[in-house]
């Protein structure tokens, strides 16, 4: 029994705390390109100082936050109606609808991103259709723009938005909506005053599940985005591979984590509050 309780802690210790301590140790060290591994351990904050003084890094942070925020909001706007529709569908149809949401995961993530490249290219399916249908003769190219990055992130992470939203919407007591209607609420007012506030835990969970990976996303901006969309994931890549500066790359990773701890803590607090409420 004691072992069972210890298991999650063991897991956390081995697969999160230890690697984290390691990354932190490297981040505090100095780049030593001539050794294996290329790190001189020590206690210094100059890697972090560089991250916060160089405007290029700051710009990358801001771009990442901006892209992640907009993508999360779009995913929420798209995912909420989807989750709502599934939660209100006939119970025997819900498993099928949920499976449709999860179905894309059966294909490799990379292949799906490549498929978007094929769709959004200059001569991709989208433009072919636009030209063929005569809607636009010179439609321009979405691939290689920030639009494509947003699209890719929203597409890739939409299921992570839909599933927690569905979970909260599905377990909602329908008699609450009847009570609201009974007390004079139009359907939309009932949605705003009852459904929406009660689904807030799902909204927060979904947003975190989209926002967190979106901030550090590397593959999608690399493949779908243009060069001007400089996100922090690319900076990390450059530091690690192009500059072979592991300490600085680790510092970026630590900052990324620190940045995400904020929203997670917020979520925890909100969860705790809703627990004491019910």
């Amino acid at each position, binding site marked *: 029994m004691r072992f069972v309780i210890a298991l999650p802690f063991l897991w956390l210790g081995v697969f999160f705390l230890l690697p984290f301590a390691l990354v932190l140790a490297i981040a505090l060290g100095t780049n030593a390109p001539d050794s294996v591994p290329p790190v001189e351990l020590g206690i210094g904050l100059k890697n972090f100082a560089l991250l916060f003084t160089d405007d290029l890094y700051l710009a990358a942070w801001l771009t990442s936050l901006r892209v992640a925020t907009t993508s999360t909001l779009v995913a929420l706007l798209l995912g909420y109606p989807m989750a709502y529709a599934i939660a209100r569908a006939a119970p025997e149809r819900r498993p099928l609808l949920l499976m449709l949401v999860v179905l894309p995961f059966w294909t490799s993530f990379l292949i799906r991103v490549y498929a978007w490249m094929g769709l959004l290219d200059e001569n991709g399916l989208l433009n072919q259709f636009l030209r063929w249908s005569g809607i636009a003769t010179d439609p321009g190219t979405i691939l290689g723009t920030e639009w494509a990055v947003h699209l890719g992130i929203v597409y890739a992470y939409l299921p992570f938005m839909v599933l927690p939203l569905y979970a909260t919407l599905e377990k909602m007591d329908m*008699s*609450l909506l*009847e009570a609201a209607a*009974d*007390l004079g*609420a139009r359907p939309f007012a009932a949605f705003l005053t009852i459904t929406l506030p009660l689904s807030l835990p799902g909204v927060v969970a979904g947003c975190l599940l989209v926002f967190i990976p979106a901030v550090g996303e590397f593959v999608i901006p690399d493949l779908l985005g243009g060069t001007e969309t400089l996100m922090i994931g690319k900076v990390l890549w450059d530091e690690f591979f192009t500059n072979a500066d592991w300490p600085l790359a680790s510092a970026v990773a630590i900052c990324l984590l620190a940045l995400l701890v904020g929203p997670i803590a917020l979520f925890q607090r909100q969860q705790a509050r809703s627990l004491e*409420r*019910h």
Partner: protein
Amino acid sequence: MDRREDGPVSGPIVRIEGLTKRFGAVTAVDDVDLEVAPGELFALLGGSGCGKTTLLRLLAGFETPDAGRLLIDGQDMTGVPPHLRPVNMMFQSYALFPHMNVAENVGYGLRREGVAKAEATTRVADALEQVRLTEYAQRRPAQLSGGQRQRVALARALVKRPKILLLDEPLAALDRKLREGTRFELVRLQAELGLTFVMVTHDQQEAMSMATRLAVMNAGRIVQVGSPREVYERPATRFVADFIGVANILKTEDGWLALRPEKIALSVERSGLANVVAGKIVDLAYEGDRSLYRIATDGAVLIVSTAPNLAHRRGDSVWLGWAADAGHPLDA
């Protein structure tokens, strides 16, 4: 000026004509006609699946009928959505909004109606006072006891000043002791407000003790409507006789006869009553305020209820007797 005084004084507050509701192959409400007069405490009584709850939900507007008409205060409710109906409901689960405190719950309907803030505050305070919850105004539903929640639900519906208050099994979620007190409180409130209550219950004792009139339902149909006394004393069918209270149902030459246990006299000597029969005590139970017997006679086992009596023993031979008008003939 209360709204309930505006309506026409004469005429029923609820009028149901040929109302039918089907769910797939099941006819939940089957061609029901019913009238409820203003100021009544009307109970819909029946076992589970008899259609009483569906009928209540049709009144509230949560279900749309497949056939028939439903008028509230003379107005046809066909196509009127729940939020526009002049009725309010107290849900069996109470359906309190968990993310709002008591005052917000009670004020919810007033906010939807667009009642001015000052007026709404006063009305909420009044409603909370009515159900003795003033000091709980800031609590969340999760922080209340079952009885307190029930009173919040009541206040939340009453504060809207509906023409009819619908109550879905209002006492079912309470424990037995609380149920007794709440029963009287509901009746007191109803009388005080002069409001029409339509209540659904499966508990015949509850219906009998509270309702001014009641409808007994079975398989989607109303079997009998009347005052508790009428229904008890003169059940229309064997189903009603059996469902309401305890009845000995006897077969006679003319048909069926319902004989309530307390109408039967039990004696050691043969009595001079119109009907007499000899029997033997099979079972007996002393219940404090009365004694119950099961007595085997020539034809059947009869249940008899008398004033508390410790003199009889199991196996004793006794005489049963009842007056000529004690039994009530049944239709079917």
